[in-house]
């Protein structure tokens, strides 16, 4: 009896293409040294504090207030960004109008414009005597140095995420689906709410989550317009910087850990949404 030799188990599936060892090894080394090791340092530092230590930092009134502002304002800003982001994505994919490509390119401005530049520009626009700040002030709204300013900066930074997550999905909608709905007697509004929108909800939620996570961590575009008044317009990332300048590494690590934890939960939520939508509709 001839025994067929069992293929020896190898880490990678055998292939004639060379260079796996060096490319894989180099990638892992860089990833380990530049990303994973430093992040592990944060975990070590935070675990040194213990849960109670982190809790103590989190419940410090100033820290708690900064976390509340960061997460609260970011949630509202992400809501606005995903609402308008959806509208922008819809208009850009569905309608043809002069300058459409220019508008489409402009959506990525917040990706390309350095945050500090955006920050001082927003601050000057929304200052009480600024181009937009003055009319707002007449309406009784003070934008600069209040959570409103933080909100504006977060919408700015979150918008591209909201637009770019739903845009490809809107482009993929089968026109026949809408036509089918119309032949069945549905008005345009019913077609939009019952047929077009529901499959897009997971993408809208993903865009919301990305904008939210980005807003929570954002620093450069916010600090100039926020004015950074403790308990009023001080955001969590700024508090990390302040703790560091006071050489309170533990405090900084604790706040960072809390932020990372919540960001992680957000990412987890995104993945769950996508997995659910794949199971339900067979696509994301």
């Amino acid at each position, binding site marked *: 009896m001839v025994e067929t030799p069992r293929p020896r188990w190898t880490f990678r599936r055998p292939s004639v293409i060379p260079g796996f060892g060096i490319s894989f090894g180099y990638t892992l080394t860089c990833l380990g040294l530049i990303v994973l090791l430093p992040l592990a340092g944060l975990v070590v530092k935070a675990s040194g504090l213990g849960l109670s230590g982190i809790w103590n930092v989190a419940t410090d009134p100033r820290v708690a207030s900064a976390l509340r502002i960061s997460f609260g304002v970011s949630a509202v800003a992400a809501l606005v960004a995903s609402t308008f982001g959806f509208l922008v994505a819809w208009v850009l994919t569905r309608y043809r109008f002069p300058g459409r490509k220019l508008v489409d390119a402009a959506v990525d401005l917040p990706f390309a414009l350095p945050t500090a530049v955006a920050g001082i520009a927003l601050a000057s626009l929304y200052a009480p005597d600024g181009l937009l700040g003055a009319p707002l002030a007449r309406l009784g709204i003070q934008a600069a140095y209040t959570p409103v300013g933080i909100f504006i900066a977060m919408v700015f930074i979150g918008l591209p995420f909201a637009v770019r997550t739903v845009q490809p999905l809107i482009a993929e909608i*089968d026109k*026949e689906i809408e*036509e089918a709905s*119309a*032949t069945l007697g549905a008005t345009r509004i019913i077609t939009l709410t019952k*047929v077009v929108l*529901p499959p897009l909800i997971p993408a809208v939620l993903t865009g919301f989550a990305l904008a939210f996570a980005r807003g929570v961590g954002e620093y450069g575009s916010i600090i100039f317009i926020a004015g950074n008044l403790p308990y009023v317009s001080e955001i969590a990332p700024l508090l990390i910087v302040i703790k560091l300048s006071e050489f309170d590494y533990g405090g900084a690590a604790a706040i960072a850990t809390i932020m990372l934890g919540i960001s992680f939960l957000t990412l987890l939520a995104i993945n769950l949404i996508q997995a659910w939508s794949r199971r339900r509709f067979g696509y994301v």
Partner: protein
Amino acid sequence: MSSRTAGHTDSPSDRPSTAIRIEAVSKTFDTAAVLHDLSLDVRAGELIGLLGPSGSGKTTLLRIIAGLDAPDRGRILFGDDDATGLAVQERAVGFVFQHYALFKHMSVADNIAYGLNARRRADRPAKAEIKRRVGDLLDLIRLSGFGDRYPSQLSGGQRQRVALARALAVEPRVLLLDEPFGALDAQVRKDLRRWLREIHDRTGQTTIFVTHDQDEALELSDRVAVLDRGRLEQVGTPDEVQENPACATVMKFLGDSVEVEAIAEGGRVLVRGRETPVVAPAGIIGPVKLYVRPWQLQLAEPESAHLSGTVRSSYRTQGRQRIEVVDTEGRVFAVEDFDGVRHPAGHPVGLRINGGHVFG
């Protein structure tokens, strides 16, 4: 939506009345004309097939009837009502798309109930009534018990049946099917074809369907409308269009044919001086083209034949024998004969013409 029930008010004495009248419809996309001045009457209760090659404008015509596209010129009448200006929502048509266009995020039952649920509250049937109708339709499409499934869990054939039920649920005055079996594989196609005919016989629903498949159109339709490059070439029962094709285009599109040089004189058609059983239309005299189907050619002794040549190839398929004969000028004639004799390649043969058509 006041006209929703108009399609069902025909009194029996009117039948067969005209359900849909297409009047001189023209349509141009960008600069290419898709429909030229096309007129067609669809009778109430009939199953009519729009047959044509791709680009013939048949799908555009269907979409214009549905209100998904607007004609540049001409009118669409539903019964006696001008529907040309009616929005698609107000036309009460049932449209079935080639790729089903089911709502993926809705269950099968919700898909079928969609049109009823989309009505204004005043016109909407009660919940229990909708549920009953959905149940009846699920029975009709033989998918009882599939109501809670999602489209992604169904096969192609099942999806198309759901699409049909969804269109029937709104009790449309006309059912429009755009290449309904085009995306399905051969066996499923055949089953669904037969089944669609059964459903039509049971419901009497006026139905227009679009296809580029001759067999499908001829097997399924009460009448066939043959379209070519935006023009209506012929309308008639499958037998009529096959026995008396109106023009060479229809002749060629409905099946294989060979062209033979012939002379017409006094109603007779001669090939190489020999008379054929073909009758030439009145007034046609001189050299003509005679179109002959493969089964209208028969192998014969050279002395009694209209044509001659040598066998190029011969094969059998499904009880038929098909022989290709090539003449001295290199023209190829396909012959269907049943003599059961093997015809080796290179063998000289004669061909007798037993029928055919000459067009004016």
